[in-house]
């Protein structure tokens, strides 16, 4: 069977679910970050697939914007993580509960 838009959408949906599972179940904030990157990446595939289906390159521009947002998110998020590690000596999100107490 020829590969079409539907195949790419199902791949992106499965990737997004995998990322969601990682964010919900992991306690290591580094791995939670990586799961968010998987979710962003799956959205990029949807943009590129619809761009291919409609014959319009605008989707590629949106993917470029998404690259920049992912890079900014990784830079800021990891800087925050390093700062948290300096204060608490841990990246386990269960240890970050001072606002709950």
């Amino acid at each position, binding site marked *: 069977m*020829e*590969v*079409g*838009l*539907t*195949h*790419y959408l*199902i*791949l992106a*949906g499965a*990737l997004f*679910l*995998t*990322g*969601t*599972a*990682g964010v*919900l*179940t*992991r*306690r*290591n904030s*580094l*791995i939670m*970050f*990586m799961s968010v*990157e*998987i979710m962003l*990446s799956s959205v*990029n*595939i949807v943009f*590129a*697939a619809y*761009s*291919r*289906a409609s*014959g319009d*390159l605008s989707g*590629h*521009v949106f*993917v*470029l914007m998404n*690259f*920049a947002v*992912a*890079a*900014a998110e*990784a*830079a*800021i998020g*990891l*800087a925050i993580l*390093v*700062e948290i*590690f300096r204060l608490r*000596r*841990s*990246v*386990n999100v*269960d240890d970050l509960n001072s606002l709950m107490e």
Partner: protein
Amino acid sequence: MESILFYLFAVLMLGSAVMTVTSRSAVAAAVWLVFCFVNAAGVFALLSAPFLAILQILIYAGAIMVLFLFVIMMLQGPVLPDERERRPWSRIAVLVLPPASAAVILIAWLARGGVTAFSGAQPAVRGTAEAVAELLLNRYLLAFELISVVLLVAIVGAMALGRRKEELPWK
């Protein structure tokens, strides 16, 4: 040929994404994620987007993952598997994810007769660097400039977070 490559990239990408999510060690997760992004570049290449494929390797598999690995190595402690990896959210994940996966499979089953083939749609527009730059610097010039402001704010923010507190000018 195209479908063989698609299934190859898709299976490898999904498999490495699952390995990223389930790895005990953060270093192993990061290396699996690099492999996942390399396969994403292959998927972009299949979608006639060679420029995006190259940028995926350069930015994601290159810059972002080097940053991740650098931070993991710098933090030292969490490189070792965390024995307290409790999963209090597992119950919600177990409740939510199987129906969501079932929905994906249902969509796949419903679409078995009417898969939108690319060949029947518009003729393929190749997303080369020239073609994307043409759009980026004309129609989407404002968004292009704004995203550079986002990156500038991220640079300044990361530097402000990384400095020692007594060095900050407003302290």
